[in-house]
């Protein structure tokens, strides 16, 4: 008897019928990013919201310019600019209620400021006087996160804890396109979906992870498509269209608050400036590409819409510009003051109670400081 004959005689039991756990179709993002400004959908947007977005985006652009200038003056160690991405930054802050939490990455200073944190405190990390300048509980903003995507599981845990306590709190976590390659991105999305945690994952796809373009970052059809694998909806939005970003994020926040679980939102945008002032963007992209995106500027898009609908005149534009200049002047003035630093703080917040060996090291530093303070020719 041949092997084939043996196989023919064998009648295997069929495996149990396989069922997908979730119908993937409703989770899939649309083929095109959601757009509102300049389309018929804009008529549905509250004019007051459009005005507010405009004022905030203009303010944000000025903030980015001022912070970049401060790096050139040596007042900031580094500044990762979000110029071109202001619509995302502002919308992320505006869609949240006071009780909600924002989990920013290092490029999201603007969202932190739009949430209400003092602009100077928001820059403390980048100035270099402390790692986090603001009290995270005051405005419910987690510290700016430098490692990539590691703040995403924090957002999931916080949202999960809030739900366990019966609070209808939503966490919105921001991450870049590069961050979606990190393991913590995957683990956070998976935990959030399994736990149905009230979280919104907000990816700002600005085209580059420092110098690496999206095509070298992922083979996925879009970053929003990644949601389907976790069992949550993925949404694509034009990241330069403030009204669209606000709409899509609001919908995700509402869903989360009502117990519908997490959403992954990908905003397609562009980083107009280099990664930071220490980066040379001309090594990896051409000026013509940047120009294309300048024509799709978030401020321009809002201005066109508001002007076409008679919601913005020269006077209103001037008022927005003035408010931005006032903010910038205040920021400049306060950032030009040297922060008062106490070296003893080095040991103050390592543990709730100083350990014996930190007490020894504090004494050593104290002795060094005392020796420095002694007048010239003093005893050593």
């Amino acid at each position: 008897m041949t092997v084939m004959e043996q196989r023919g005689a064998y009648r295997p039991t069929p495996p149990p019928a396989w069922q997908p756990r979730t119908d993937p179709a409703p989770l899939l993002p649309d083929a095109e990013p959601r757009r509102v400004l300049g389309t018929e959908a804009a008529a549905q947007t509250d004019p007051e919201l459009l005005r507010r977005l405009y004022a905030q985006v203009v303010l944000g652009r000025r903030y980015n310019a001022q912070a970049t200038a401060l790096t050139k003056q040596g007042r900031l160690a580094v500044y990762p600019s979000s110029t071109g991405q202001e619509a995302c930054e502002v919308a992320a802050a505006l869609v949240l209620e006071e009780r909600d939490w924002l989990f920013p990455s290092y490029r999201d200073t603007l969202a932190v400021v739009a949430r209400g944190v003092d602009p100077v405190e928001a820059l403390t990390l980048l100035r270099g006087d402390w790692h986090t300048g603001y009290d995270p509980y005051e405005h419910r903003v987690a510290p700016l996160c430098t490692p990539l995507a590691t703040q995403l599981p924090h957002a999931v845990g916080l949202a999960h804890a809030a739900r366990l306590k019966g609070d209808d709190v939503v966490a919105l976590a921001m991450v870049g396109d590069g961050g979606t390659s990190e393991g913590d991105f995957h683990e956070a999305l998976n935990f959030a979906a399994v736990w149905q945690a009230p979280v919104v994952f907000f990816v700002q796809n600005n085209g580059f992870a420092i110098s690496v373009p999206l095509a070298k970052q992922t083979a996925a059809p879009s970053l929003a498509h990644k949601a389907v694998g976790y069992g949550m909806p993925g949404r694509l939005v034009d990241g330069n269209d403030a009204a669209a970003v606000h709409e899509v994020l609001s919908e995700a926040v509402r869903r989360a608050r009502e117990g519908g679980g997490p959403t992954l939102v990908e905003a397609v945008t562009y980083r107009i400036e280099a990664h930071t002032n220490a980066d040379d963007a001309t090594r990896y992209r051409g000026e013509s590409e940047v120009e294309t995106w300048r024509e799709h500027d978030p401020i321009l898009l809002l201005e066109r819409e508001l002007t076409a609908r008679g919601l913005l005149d020269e006077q209103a534009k001037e008022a927005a510009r003035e408010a931005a200049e006032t903010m910038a002047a205040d920021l400049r003035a306060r950032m030009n003051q040297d922060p008062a630093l106490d070296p003893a703080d080095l040991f103050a917040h390592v543990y709730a109670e100083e350990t014996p060996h930190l007490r020894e090291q504090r004494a050593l530093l104290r002795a060094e400081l005392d020796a420095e303070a002694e007048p010239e020719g003093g005893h050593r």
Partner: protein
Amino acid sequence: MTTVALKPATMAQALTRALRDAMAADPSVHVLGEDVGTLGGVFRVTDGLAKEFGEDRCTDTPLAEAGILGTAVGMAMYGLRPVVEMQFDAFAYPAFEQLISHVARMRNRTRGRMPLPITVRVPYGGGIGGVEHHSDSSEAYYIATPGLHVVTPATVADAYGLLRDAIASDDPVVFLEPKRLYWSKDTWNPEDPQTVDPIGRAVVRRPGRSATLITYGPSVPVCLEAAEAARAEGWDLEVVDLRSLVPFDDETVAASVRRTGRAVVVHESGSFGGPGGEIAARVTERCFHHLEAPVLRVAGFDIPYPPPMLERHHLPGVDRILDAVARLQWEAGN
């Protein structure tokens, strides 16, 4: 003197009791990890907790250590006290970034505004015949990270007391559980468990005059056995159980070495870059004029943890400790 009903209990039972008591005393204590719920943990340390407190308090998570610890960070931010289980020493490595970049320094990053009271339970060490990645002694990585407390019990009573203290601590604590002591029995009063000495204090487990064995966790019983064996050689060894590597109890250790004049540090983890080097340096700095011999180390070899059929050659045993003790009969020029 009060008489209490002391009964034999295992370290695993004491740990379970500590978790249960902590959860009963404080509704913000949550246990999470892979297999901690329905199964009760692969070592059964979380046995019965999900049943008693519900799956929201004792949660089976997806299999992802960074996710387990990362979500615990968020839970702690919102006022909970998460106790996470890492199942096996080497399984904790994917969670290192969360531990080092966030857990250890969130208090510091936020000037004390956002402390993270997280307990990370890590079953560690060898001697149970585990296959690769199931027997690492990873304490050197943890003690090199400022912001973490690192403790490890060697007795049943300490397993209970230190775990209660760890969970109650407002700082993150890496709680290293010596796997091979899980089933070690001790007389202990499970009806009225007491926390004993606090985190940060070392304890003299056996007083002696001729030399000090400085040790912790799984090596404590080995050192006590070596001390008994050394009596035949005329050595009266003192055994100090550190209990806590961070904070480190220099006082108890130095006081012992000043009495005895000789010291051997014993641990399972490798000797190069291991805790023994740090301890020997601290002892030398504090006791130099009292020392009759160099501080010696008896440690695991500086090799990846060996396969189970060879691990007995790697782990510091009584003979290797006694050889080191013999070398303390130091004469300059030897």
